[in-house]
């Protein structure tokens, strides 16, 4: 099947700022695709180009088989959008705004609307002026999720939601996937991405630095191993892919060993360890945080990185 979203070499500049600098993105039908990147890396700009709100300066952009700038109106019948920064008309109530948006899109499902309002515990009779950030976000979520659109474009959709609502949101996305809909989920919340996404694209400074299935990406990173052996280990520091090796010998001759290993070389490293007589072994697969940090590590101070490591 053709991809739902294909972006190749996308460039977008604002004056002297190069917001997108050759970005690539591919989203397959029926998948939940995570779109990750730090603040200001170009996630929202990319989404605005995909929605035809901004015109690409260079590169190829295709959405649902059409050109998002030229065919905007036709394509928007088939997608629903939830912004991360929700601004509403202060005089209108949440209920009025939700109805207005569902009518604009043309697929009104009253039962679904009422169910979502219930699930997200939104009071639809309040004027938008009085909503908190989380409640404004709920209005946008209900309006977006109430549609039967093929594609959901979500730009940090859960900012401001409490953990209960976050769980409700994740449930809604799983339902959408079960219905065969495609989701592009831009997010900061790595746990959310790990819980929901089949594939992720990580961008930085307007460029895609990593893209693929979460499992595949994990293989590209290092696994942390710590073990105790009966005898001294030999040959570990000569193995390819082993880093940060640390060996401490106890008085009774036991060895405590810690190291990092490129996940593709994990098998050889464990085989070497077991020759020395394993007493205990823990290995932690890389988290999405580590994946993320691998690409942004140089932006963090050493202390911050250490704090993050220590927290795991």
């Amino acid at each position, binding site marked *: 099947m053709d991809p739902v979203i294909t972006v190749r070499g996308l460039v977008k500049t604002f004056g002297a700022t190069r917001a997108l600098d050759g970005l690539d993105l591919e989203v397959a039908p029926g998948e939940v695709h995570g779109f990750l990147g730090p603040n200001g890396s170009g996630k929202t700009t990319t989404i605005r180009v995909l929605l035809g709100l901004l015109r690409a300066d260079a590169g190829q952009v295709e959405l649902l088989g059409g050109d998002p700038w030229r065919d905007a109106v036709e394509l928007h019948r088939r997608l629903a959008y939830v912004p991360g920064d929700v601004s509403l008309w202060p005089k209108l109530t949440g209920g009025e705004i939700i109805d207005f948006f569902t009518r604009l899109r043309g697929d009104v499902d009253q039962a679904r609307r009422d169910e979502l309002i219930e699930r997200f515990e939104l009071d639809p009779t309040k004027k938008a002026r*009085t909503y908190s950030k989380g409640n404004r976000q709920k209005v946008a979520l209900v309006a977006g999720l109430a549609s039967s659109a093929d594609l959901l474009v979500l730009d940090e959709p859960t900012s401001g939601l409490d953990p209960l609502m976050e769980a409700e949101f994740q449930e809604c996305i799983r339902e959408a996937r079960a219905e065969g809909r495609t989701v592009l989920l831009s997010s900061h919340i790595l746990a959310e991405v790990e819980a929901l996404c089949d594939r992720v694209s990580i961008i930085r400074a307007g460029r895609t630095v990593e893209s693929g299935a979460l499992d595949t990406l994990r293989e590209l990173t290092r696994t942390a191993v710590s073990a105790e052996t009966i005898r001294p280990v030999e040959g570990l520091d000569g193995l390819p892919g082993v880093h940060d090796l640390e060996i401490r010998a106890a008085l009774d001759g036991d060895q405590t060993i810690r190291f990092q290993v490129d996940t593709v070389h994990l098998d050889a490293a464990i085989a070497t360890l077991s020759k020395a007589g394993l007493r205990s072994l823990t290995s932690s697969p890389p988290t999405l945080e580590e994946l993320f940090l691998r690409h942004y590590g140089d932006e963090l101070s050493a202390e911050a990185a250490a704090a993050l490591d220590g927290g795991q």
Partner: protein
Amino acid sequence: MRSDLARTGAVVRLIVRRDRIRLLVWIGAIVLLVYVSAVSTIEIYPTQADLDLAAAAAEDNPVALAFNGPDQALDTMGGQIAFQVGAFGLALVGLMSVLLVGRATRTEEDSGRLELVRAMPVGRHAPLVASLLVVGGALVVVATASALSLVALDQEVHGSIVFGSALLAVGLLFLALTAVTAQVAENPRVATGVAGGILGASYVIRGVGDMSGGGLSWLSPIGWAQKARPFAGETWWPLGLALGVTFGLGVLAVLLAERRDFGSGLVAPRPGPAAASDELRSPLALALRLHRAAVAWWAAATALLGFVYGSLAESVEEFIGDNEAMADLIASLQGVSLVDSYLATSLLITALLAVGPALQIAGRMRAEEAELRAEPMLAAPIPRTSWMGAHVALALGSTVLAMVVGGLGLGIGHAAAGGGIGQVAELTIDGITYLPALLVVAGAAVVLFGAVPRWTAGGWLVLTACFVIAMFGALLDLPQSVINLSPLQHVPPVPASEVRALPLLVLSALALALVGAGFVAFRRRDLATS
């Protein structure tokens, strides 16, 4: 109490930095109004005989008294200048207070920006007090500069000081009043709306009072300011009365502020409908919902203005009397009746006012885009032309409505004062001949929105230029090439002239081209959210 005001100075600097342009525009506009009124009064009434005639005409003209103020030493230059700046100038100072204080308090709270400030080691009342200090300071500048400009034009010093102090007293009173409504009202719009409503009522009450002998004017703060009699045997104590009320309101504001929660008024908001009405299903329906109040208010304003001007028309001959300079100003054409010239000028002023709603709605369209409310609509299957078209339709429609009811009001006012029932239809049609020119000005705002969205407010500059050319073009001796830049100058001055088709057709084509260019430019550009 001291910690309640911590870092007030820092907040003062923040407000000055943020609103410096806005403050300068207000100060400049009011001082300029005083100065230009004084200069033109001196020019129009060069001799004592002229002043005597003007005074005699005004004394017998209840509507002039209703507009400008009580009959106080109108046969002196100073008295006449104070009369010309009049209640309008005082009300404008009040409006400055209401809008600036409303903006610096509740609007700023609603935006979430003040929350950041209050989370700093900044006192509870520092933002309120700081906004009062800044606006109060601006009022002092307005009052001082106004008084100095009168002194510079050789008016009596004592009268000039009282004149400036009267401006200051009204400004401070409405400053304190807005500080009170900002504590009580449910939301920022209500806070400024209520204070503005009381200001409007003050203007009207003293108008009725001045027309009927003056007693009722004591119920209006603007009336008090005029009772201080600048250039007419100055009396300070009515200003003391205003100051006392100001102080009382200030104390009330602080007491109420103690009881109010941040971000909300003492009046709690009421819930609204849980579902939208059946009509709310298109961009046009939304635009109507957003702009209907503005459309109605502007239409009411032009209708009322037209009506008042119309009811004055028959008395214009005696009002102007034998003053040739005044007659020249109104009748720049030979061989037409004074009444028709007067009606033509009235229609021109009504027309200038009628552009207001279009420019306001164009500005709101820009705000919809900049504040991210256009984005989700354009991410729905809504063509850009429909989104923009809805706002532009309301903008242009509101100007058409305001002009039609303005002409209608002029006609009804004229007919009611004895001008004949035929005037109603005639003046309405005359008003309509202004529409092509008005739509050119509105079109300028539309094309700015399309091409350079950040400059959408430039439409107001265009309107101001048209206003200056229309009102002061002759007085300032502007070259004809500059005067011709205003589209309104190409409308034949009906009813003092025959309607000519060609300029109207050219203006219509220009308006159409500007609006069309605005749409084309918007379709081609990025959505500009900053």
